[in-house]
């Protein structure tokens, strides 16, 4: 690697202020990070991955974010195995009961235990969020890497498509598509992914533009390696830091989208329900003051999204340390 190489600046995406908000570009590196990032002589050489990990683990908020997210996963997927509730048979005798010993968070309008409902509903919110973010990342990385690697007319054409789609706010695009399909969990994953891969594609294209002229990519081409190999084995893996950070924020966005769609009644359909659906059910009874239909689901949404944002910020700091070394 060239010694005097400056880390590529993340291309600022004018249409997505969402990610930029979370940066703190002026955070001056303290002595410890300066040592780790190689600006000051360190005791012994360590791999950049280790160094990144250390920075990440030092970030208390990021670690807390990971813990909270892990806890919510356990809560939603293991919780129902421990805390047995009836979530399939409507029971109007127990409708909208306030919290009590037998129902710690009360019951909803169909007589379902709210705590048990939170777990079941959370499964859908988290599944859709994670799967949509993963799919969006794969599509975005491939699109961006191909456009950036080949450049020229192909690049221009591919990026015009991205620009055009970006000029429609994602939520509007999402509503248009959802209004045309019958939403199931799988359909929603695909739809959310198809509307949110654009920023990833832009970022990866920027990376690919700088990576494709690197010596090792050139060397591989001289040795007769094909374009597919260059994109898949060299461009994409070397942009992994940017991709990971972006993927984390995609998870936060995807969860926010599925919850918003379900709230608007265009997401998950009954009998399935996610946190957004619980909220839209709860707002029907808001004038009766049934707060337990709203606060728990709302708390879960904010908790999960905040946790993911913290993890994303921590990852970003860690990756920046790695980049300084590259």
């Amino acid at each position, binding site marked *: 690697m060239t010694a005097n190489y400056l880390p590529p600046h993340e291309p600022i995406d004018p249409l997505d202020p969402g990610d930029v908000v979370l940066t703190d570009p002026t955070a001056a590196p303290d002595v410890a990070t300066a040592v780790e990032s190689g600006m000051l002589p360190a005791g012994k050489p360590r791999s950049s991955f280790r160094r990144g990990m250390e920075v990440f683990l030092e970030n208390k908020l990021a670690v807390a974010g990971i813990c909270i997210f892990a806890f919510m996963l356990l809560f939603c997927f293991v919780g129902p195995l421990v805390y047995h509730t009836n979530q399939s048979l409507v029971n109007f005798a127990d409708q909208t009961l306030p919290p009590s010993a037998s129902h710690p968070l009360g019951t909803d309008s169909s007589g379902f235990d709210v705590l048990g409902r939170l777990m079941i509903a959370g499964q859908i919110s988290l599944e859709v969020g994670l799967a949509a973010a993963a799919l969006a990342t794969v599509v975005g990385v491939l699109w961006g890497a191909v456009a950036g690697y080949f450049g020229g007319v192909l690049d221009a054409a591919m990026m015009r498509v991205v620009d055009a789609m970006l000029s429609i706010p994602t939520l509007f695009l999402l509503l248009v598509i959802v209004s045309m399909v019958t939403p199931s969990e799988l359909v929603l994953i695909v739809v959310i992914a198809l509307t949110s891969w654009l920023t990833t594609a832009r970022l990866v294209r920027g990376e690919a533009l700088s990576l494709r002229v690197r010596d090792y990519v050139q060397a591989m081409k001289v040795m007769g390696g094909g374009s597919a190999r260059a994109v898949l084995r060299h461009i994409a893996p070397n942009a992994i830091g940017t991709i990971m950070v972006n993927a984390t924020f995609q998870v936060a966005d995807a969860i926010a989208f599925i919850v*918003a769609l379900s709230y608007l009644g265009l997401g998950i359909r009954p009998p399935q329900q996610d946190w*957004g659906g619980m909220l839209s059910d709860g707002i029907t009874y808001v004038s009766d*003051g049934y707060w337990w239909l709203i606060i728990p689901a709302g708390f879960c949404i904010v908790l999960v999204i905040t946790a993911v*944002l913290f993890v994303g910020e921590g990852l970003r700091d860690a990756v920046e340390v790695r980049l300084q070394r590259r």
Partner: protein
Amino acid sequence: MLIVTVFTFLLLRLIPGNVAVAIMGPGAYRDPAAIAQFNRQYGFDKPWYAQYWLWLSNLLRGNLGYSWKQNQSVASLLGERLPKTVILVGIATLVALIIAVPIGIIQAVRRNKVVDHFFNGFSTVFYAMPSFLLGILLILVFAIKIPIFPAEAPQGETIGVIFSNFNAMILPIATLALISIALFSRYMRSSVLDNITEDYVRTAKAKGASERRILVRHILRNSLIPIATLLGLSLPFILSGALITESVFNYPGMGLLFFQSASSQDYPVLLGITVVVAAATVVGSLLADITYAALDPRVRYVSR
């Protein structure tokens, strides 16, 4: 922009099912002649590119088409709804700026102190909170528990109604403003932090200028430049927020219209609003570039 229209148009024409049946009801199947008549009338018997051309040429003449469900032209619907959204978004953004800019400055000046951490937590939570949840919570607290504001936004055809019943506007504006504050104050904080380390600040200090003067005359002016650009760029974010806020408070603006059209599959309206929103986004980022150049003389020197 042209690509956007082709793209949206194709997207909406890919709808499964028969448009005529969707509008006239399932009973239309018994009368094929009526379906054929409908298709001829609306041009659905032509290939998609002919339909697109027809729609585009109408668009350029200011004719956005005719709503399938509301028995009104899209242009008149928009003319009725758009000003209301502009009012909501405009006031909320203004309120957000007035509150967010001082918060950002305080955070930057008292960096890593208690105040900074407090507002940081505040803005993270509001940034993570979906706008509809915030809206519901505000209704729960300020309309149900302590009934000081109505839970529903002002209804009615004219803009005058909004101002005559302004009390009902407080909660929708607060919802949209709180979420924008979270965004703007974060930007302001990092923008001020960027400037605090600049050489001219040290120069001003060396000259003996007071803290206050440095802050207001030097740092504030320079920090506001990125915020001005940000305003244009955050338009998609604010419009999405407005869509949700309007549906929570049943505020008869463009966002609610869009949501209702999406639920009732009123495609000409969806198409019309999408074009307007996309145009607003493009104009917003263009304005951002222009204000940036206008406010920061360095940009002009750099450009050819």
